[in-house]
Structures are given as C-alpha cells and as structure tokens.
C-alpha cells in the first residue's frame, strides 16, 4: 500500500514546551484528512513540519514513500494554503498563480496557457491583472487556492483555509473544495478547530489535544464511538460522566459517578471493578420522564432552552453542579419548561464507555 503521507513518531519542542508529541499518521492516496483540535493542540505545528517550515526534533516524514524529513520546503512535493492566504501584494493575480510554474522553470508560452486555464477554472480570469489588495475575501481565497493547486502537488496542506471568510461563504467554499479534492485526487491535509468542517469534509478525522493525537478515524467512528473523555467533550452534543467502575456483569458495567451510578455497555472493552472510567451519552439520546425499565435516571433542573430550528436544546443542571444538554426535535412541541425540575434518563445502549 502506498501512502501519500506518513508521519512516524513526530516530536517537536519549543524550549520546554512540547508542541507535537509522538504523532503518527498515515494518509492513503487521495484522502481528505482533517486535523481537528483546540488552538495550541499542535495541529498547525504538525502541518508546518510536513511542509518543512518547522524542523521536527524527532520522527520521520515520508511524502509519497520518500523520506523528506531533512528536505527544505522547496524540495517537497506539497503546496500549502495559509490562513491569511499569504498572497504576494506586489504581484498581479496572473503572475501570482503562475509563480509556482515559473519556479519549476516552465517555458513562458506553456505557462501562460496553463495559467489562463486555471484562472478560468477557478473563475478568477476577470481579475487576472488586478493585485490582491483590490480583491474581496472570497476572491483572494480562490487566488490562493489556484496558486497552490496549479502545480498539482501530491499533498495540499491547508491551515484553517476558510477561517478568514465570511460565515455565509464558508459552506459554499467547503462543498467546492471537497468536489475539487475528489476530482483531482490530491490528498488534502486540512487543519481546523471547527468540527463542522472536519466532520463534513474529512475521510479521516484526527482529533488532537495537548500535542498528542487523541483519536483518529472516520467521522462516523469518532462521532459514534469517542474513545477518550476529551474527544467526547470536544465533539458537540455529548454529555460526559467521570467515575469508577463499581461492578461488571456480562456485557454491562456499572459506573459510579458524583451524580449517581449508571449502567453502560462494555462494548469491546474489559473494564475492571475499581478502575477509573468515563462514558458519554449524546444529548439526543436523553429523554425526560424515562420509562420504568431504564436503569439510568437522574434528577436535574432545567436552566434554559435554546431553539435552533431543527433542534430544541435544554441546558440542564446535574446534582453535582455540572451542566448537561438534552436535544429534542425542533418540530415537536417543547417537553420541558425552563426553570423547572426534570427527571431525565437514557437507555443502557445509549451510553458509550471510553477507552
């Protein structure tokens, strides 16, 4: 199996601060990979190491099977899109987009032809002779993308590429980028702190925290089966419980927490009584007035209700003071009132044990 990118045990320190710690990652041919995490989690540093803009302290980076760890950026088969787009203010759009081909010593005629094609394809041919200063955010984004894509690199590295765009533009641009990635077969490594971007775009999502990879997998794997309390808490809509394993009976374990004890499926794990454990329940699996048969129930008080159209979200307070969320279909009539006591519960199979 050939990989577009392999990162092996990457480590990068700045003085006493470890920015990337033992990160390993494999990106197959033509994959869309999203590095997701809060700011300062090491995702951008990882990306910059792949680009060659940072020198790793340990570990290897292989692009297309070739070890490039010691190679400078200009010798790597990559292109990069920067958060601020990093357009050259003194070059026209035409010159700018052709820069990569010029550096590869394409003959001028061939280059001009290719630049014209690409400008047309990205619908920026109208601005060919303008400089970036006179373009809108969306137009700049297209120029930056065209400039990076024209050389057809093996890997395109994108550092929060749509973070600088207006909210209304983002969705359109996301769909376009995904289509472009599929069509060209270039692997995209997309760094973002926005989980909507990561889960809707990524074939593979890599969740990072404190310089380490917490979990990697398809969006479905991560959303349905968060492996760590961090991932569960970072992904929207999860309620996380921390506690101790009290008892294991067959396929079910009882976890004691500050808010009471709850039964969760053990899944493929082997929890031992006395062990620290955490689990999560998605907000849409919680129900008010749980039926008699549900072993997991909890007395809460409802603080506020947020209405998003498709979803009605209740912010509940647990007995231990922590906040929980319960989601209801937006089209249904509200089943809880703000500032009222509410007993809620969930079926055993809704709990996801971490590990």
């Amino acid at each position, binding site marked *: 199996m050939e990989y577009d990118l392999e990162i092996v045990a990457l480590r990068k320190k700045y003085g006493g601060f470890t920015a990337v710690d033992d990160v390993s990652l494999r990106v197959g041919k033509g994959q869309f990979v999203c590095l997701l995490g809060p700011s300062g989690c090491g995702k951008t540093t990882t990306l910059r190491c792949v680009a060659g803009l940072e020198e790793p302290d340990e570990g290897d980076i292989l692009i297309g099977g070739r070890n490039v760890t010691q190679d400078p950026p200009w010798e790597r088969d990559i292109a990069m899109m920067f958060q601020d787009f990093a357009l050259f203010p003194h070059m026209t759009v035409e010159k700018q987009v052709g820069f*990569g081909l010029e550096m590869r010593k394409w003959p001028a005629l061939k280059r001009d032809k290719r630049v014209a094609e690409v400008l047309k394809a990205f619908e920026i041919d109208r601005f060919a002779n303008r400089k970036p200063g006179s373009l809108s955010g969306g137009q700049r984004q297209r120029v930056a993308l065209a400039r990076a894509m024209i050389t057809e690199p093996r890997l395109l590295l994108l550092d929060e590429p749509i973070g600088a765009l207006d909210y209304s533009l983002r969705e359109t641009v996301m769909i376009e980028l995904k289509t472009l990635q599929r069509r060209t077969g270039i692997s995209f490594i997309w760094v973002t702190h926005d989980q909507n971007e990561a889960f809707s775009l990524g074939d593979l999502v890599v969740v990072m925290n404190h310089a380490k990879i917490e979990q990697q997998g398809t969006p479905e794997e991560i959303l349905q089966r968060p492996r760590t309390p961090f991932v569960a808490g970072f992904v929207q809509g999860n309620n996380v419980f921390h506690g101790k394993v009290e008892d294991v009976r067959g396929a079910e374990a009882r976890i004691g927490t500050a808010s009471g004890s709850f039964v969760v499926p053990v899944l493929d794990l082997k929890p031992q009584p006395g062990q620290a454990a955490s689990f999560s329940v998605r907000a849409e699996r919680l129900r008010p007035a749980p039926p008699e048969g549900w072993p997991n129930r909890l007395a809460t008080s409802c603080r506020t209700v947020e209405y998003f159209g498709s979803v009605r979200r209740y912010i509940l307070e647990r007995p231990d003071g922590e906040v929980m969320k319960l989601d209801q279909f937006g089209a249904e009539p509200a089943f809880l009132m703000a500032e009222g006591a509410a007993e809620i519960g969930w079926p055993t199979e809704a709990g996801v044990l971490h590990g």
Partner: protein
Amino acid sequence: MSTIRPRSLPAYLLALPAGLWMFGAVVMPALLILWVSLWGGTAFGPGNPITLANYERFFANASYRGLIANTFLHTLMLMAITGVLGYGIAYFLVMKVRSRAWRTALFLAFIIPFWTSALIRAIAWVPFLGVNGVINQALMGLGITERPIEIFLYSRTGISMAQVSLYTLMASGPVVYMLAQIPPSLREAAMTLKAPPGVVFRRVIFPLTLPGVVIGQVLVFLSVMADFATVQWIGGNKIALLPNLILNFYEGAQLRAAAVVSVVLMACMLVGTFIAMRVVDIRKLGT
C-alpha cells in the same frame, strides 16, 4: 476617524500655522536666495538689475563644473555603500534576530549615537582618523602596519568613512520599517511554491521593501549633498564639495556667487528627489 472633511475651513485653519512657518522659514528664504543670485551690479540692495551673468560666470569655470560632477559622484558612492550596509543591517535586525530583547537592544545600540548632533558626530571622527588616532594606533598595535596611515584624515577616504557611519541609519531605518511589515507567511508561501531562499528574496522580499530603499536613498542623497560640516572637519581645507563652495564664497563676502551655488545645489537635489519619486510613490508607503 477624523470628522474634519478635506478642503473645509477647519482643515485649512489646521494647516495654517505649519503653512505660515514653512512659508517664512523655507519658501521666502529660498526665493530671496534665488533673487540675490540674479543680481547684477555691485551694490548690496534691492535696486540691482536682474541678470543671468552670475550663472554664466559660474558655469564658464571648468573647475566648478568638475566640482558639481565630483559632488554627484561622491554622493552616489555614499548612497551605494550606505544602501548595501543599511539593507544588510535592517535584514539582520528584522529577519535574523529572533529574540525580541536582543532586537531592541541592538536597535538601540544602532540609533543612540544619532541622538547627538551631526556636527558633533562629524567632529568626533577626527581623533579616530588622525595620524595618532585610534584607528592607526589599533592597526599598529595589531602589527598590520608599521607606520601610521595618513590617508584617513584630510582625505576622501576619511570623509567617506565618517559619512558612512553618519548616514547608514538613514538608509536602514525605512528598510527596517518595510521589512517588519512583511508577514512571515509570504516567505513561507513562496518557499512552498518551490522558491529557494535567494529567489524568495529577489522576487518577494526585495520588491516589497523597495519603497523603503528608495526613501532611504533619498535621505542619504539629500544629506550627503548638503553636508559641508563633515567635509570641512575631516577634509580640512584640502577637500571641498559643492556646499563648501557656498561657505567659501560666503566667507569671502561674495554673496551673489554664494547664492548661485546655493541655487545650483538646490536644483541638483530637486532633480535627484524628482527622479526617486518617479521610481516609487512615497505616498503609497504603508498601504
């Protein structure tokens, strides 16, 4: 955002004090000098006839024409040296010194000497360059030369050495400013587009600092063209450039001739500045 609209009465009133000052301190004297340079006759007063004879006499003298060429050549050489040195210093300070504290310290070390007057700094070079000066003592102490080198003081070499130290900051400062404006991501973007460092400099960094380079060059040009003090102190009476000629005529009470040289010098400076402005639009600086 200012609430004063351009071309409104308050805008003109705000410009008035500075405008009056400039008129009284710059425009009027310049016009007076121009007028004096056109005086015929021998009397000192406003009743003289207007004539170009003073100019004809000045330009008929080959050694004066040579002096103009010499002044230009000397200035161009200074511009080249301070330009290269200044750019190097600016590049080092902004791009190579990573630590903030070090950058501030080095920058201060660089500019603190400029808190003293240019005249004092020019005079301060004399004990450095003299036959028994610091440089010669050091060279002999290190065994590089046996006898003191005499070309330092009272020579073009000495004048140039002093002027390089006096004016490099002027060439460097605007470049520091322009370099600091360039986001690091521009260099990185160029590198990921396969440009090796030399090409990144030539195609991205240098063009973006060009306005700073030109402004620095204009400052050096104007300063060196007008610098009579350094030439006088370090050149002794052996060397003279155009501004020293003004002083000579003035001290010899040849007011008409002094005015003529002043006007010629001003014209040279205007032409140089005009050419520089054709290369780069200073008003676009910082946009």
